[in-house]
């Protein structure tokens, strides 16, 4: 303990700009959350970080920094010193900034500390919709072209990717995409009948489904979830989806590239242990998220694969501003 004291006092005197693992963390760490208070990213980060703090023996002060689909937060952290005192707590969106024309940075400027969990998309419908499953919806679209209103959350959001998948697998669907600024408001609109169908994240829709406020059409995964065993996987309707699944949004903690390796190791260890905490895993499970808790090369590989698949899917659906090729994002399998 006294050593730690001395270290802190020394750090105070020298206004330590050096970061070494021996006394890391010698000051509080800033965690910049890319999305607003109360959202999924916010909830996930605020519930895992206290466990990681306990392992780390330091304090992580979490701040929400919203705006421009998270690009403001990403640029802020990318511009901070790479000393492990500024963490980016984000979701999958930055992987699509480049091709969507939203910015010139993505997670390739960062080192993943931990990719915590992944969500599973699910297609839900208003409870009074004139169809009960995925096949019924397809028949309805064919019979009533241009009438079905499907919720979306802007280019690059989960719904746009799921819709792009549907367009690729089933051929171009004639539907109206009504934009919302998040799946919360969109699911509210689904219940009020302003939209008919919504591709949402399982965790956000699960309570509504259990209460019968909305009906599930298909789970966008290769197999049914044990949370909702009665909802069929979309591959059971069309095998074509198997190419793109499993796919889902994810949450992760990142530091800028150039952060000393021993600091990265310390942080990775803290978040890996934090993510194992039963309170956290049960929370993630009840919200329908799949735990991943990967870091290092495994996480890098995951990010690359995710980016390739999604970027080309969106590009082929004609939803991008620039080709993935321009940014050196290879087509999957090449």
């Amino acid at each position, binding site marked *: 303990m006294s050593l730690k*004291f001395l270290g802190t006092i020394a*750090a*105070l005197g020298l*206004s330590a700009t050096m970061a070494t693992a021996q006394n890391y*963390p010698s*000051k*509080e760490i800033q965690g910049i959350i890319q999305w607003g208070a109360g959202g999924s990213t916010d909830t996930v980060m605020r519930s895992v970080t206290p466990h990681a703090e306990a392992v780390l023996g330091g304090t992580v*002060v979490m*701040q929400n920094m919203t705006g421009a689909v998270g690009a403001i937060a990403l640029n802020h952290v990318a511009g901070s010193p790479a000393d492990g005192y500024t963490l980016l707590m984000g979701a999958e969106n930055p992987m699509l900034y480049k091709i969507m024309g939203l910015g010139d940075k993505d997670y390739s400027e960062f080192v993943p500390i931990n990719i915590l969990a992944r969500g599973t998309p699910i297609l839900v419908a208003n409870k009074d919709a004139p169809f009960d499953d995925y096949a019924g919806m397809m028949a309805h679209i064919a019979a009533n072209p241009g009438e079905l209103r499907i919720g979306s959350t802007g280019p690059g959001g989960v719904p746009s990717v799921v819709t792009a998948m549907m367009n690729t697998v089933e051929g171009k669907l004639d539907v109206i995409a009504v934009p919302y600024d998040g799946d919360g408001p969109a699911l509210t609109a689904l219940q009020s009948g302003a939209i008919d169908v919504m591709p949402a994240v399982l965790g956000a829709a699960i309570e509504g489904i259990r209460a019968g406020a909305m009906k599930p059409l298909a789970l966008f995964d290769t197999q049914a979830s044990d949370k909702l065993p009665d909802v069929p996987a979309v591959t059971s309707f069309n095998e074509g989806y198997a190419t793109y699944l499993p796919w889902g949004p994810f949450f992760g903690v990142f530091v800028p590239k150039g952060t000393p390796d021993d600091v990265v190791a310390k942080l990775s260890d803290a978040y890996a242990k934090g993510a194992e905490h039963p309170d956290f895993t049960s929370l993630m499970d009840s919200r329908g998220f799949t735990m991943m808790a990967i870091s290092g090369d495994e996480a890098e590989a995951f990010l690359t694969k995710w980016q390739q698949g999604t970027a080309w899917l969106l590009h082929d659906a004609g939803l991008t501003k620039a080709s993935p090729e321009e940014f050196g994002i290879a087509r999957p399998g090449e």
Partner: protein
Amino acid sequence: MDPEFRGDSDHHDGTSDATPGGYAEGRRPGELGFALILTAASLFLLYSAYGISGFTALSGPGAIPMATTLVMVVAVAIVALRTWRLPRVTSETLSRDILPPMVILFIGFLIVFGLLLKPLGFVPTAALFLTIAIKVLARRGWGYTLAVALGSLVVIWIVFRVVFTVLLPAGILPEAEFIQFFRTLLSGGAS
């Protein structure tokens, strides 16, 4: 009494927002210039709004901005025209009633504050600002000035930085190490 009269008879700056300042029957110094600047700015914004998405769709991201900037242009043109027709208020001058030296000085202080906030950090900038501002306004001794300025800064800093963990720009002070030091001290004492 003129029902259209909105100003206050002794105070020309509006008692509250529901009764704004200005005069119904006269044009204050600089009022026409202000209206003209607003007109020019509104026209520019209208042009910029047109650039967002043009006339492509009713649902385009530029539809509402275009409509609102058009309203701005029309409304401010009417205002400018009316202001132009009003007689000038002869009892006021720009440098005495609208922009007295003290206000210009404080606007200057604020600009300097904004510029120094990031490089110097919040605490030194705020200390400097409070001390100078209170000294200028109160014209009291240095003891009083420093005591009030630094005392209130400490309170504000504790509320925002420590209690509400707002990460104010740290600048040159090793603020985070300082806080961590006290945290360790507290947790050390507790365990």
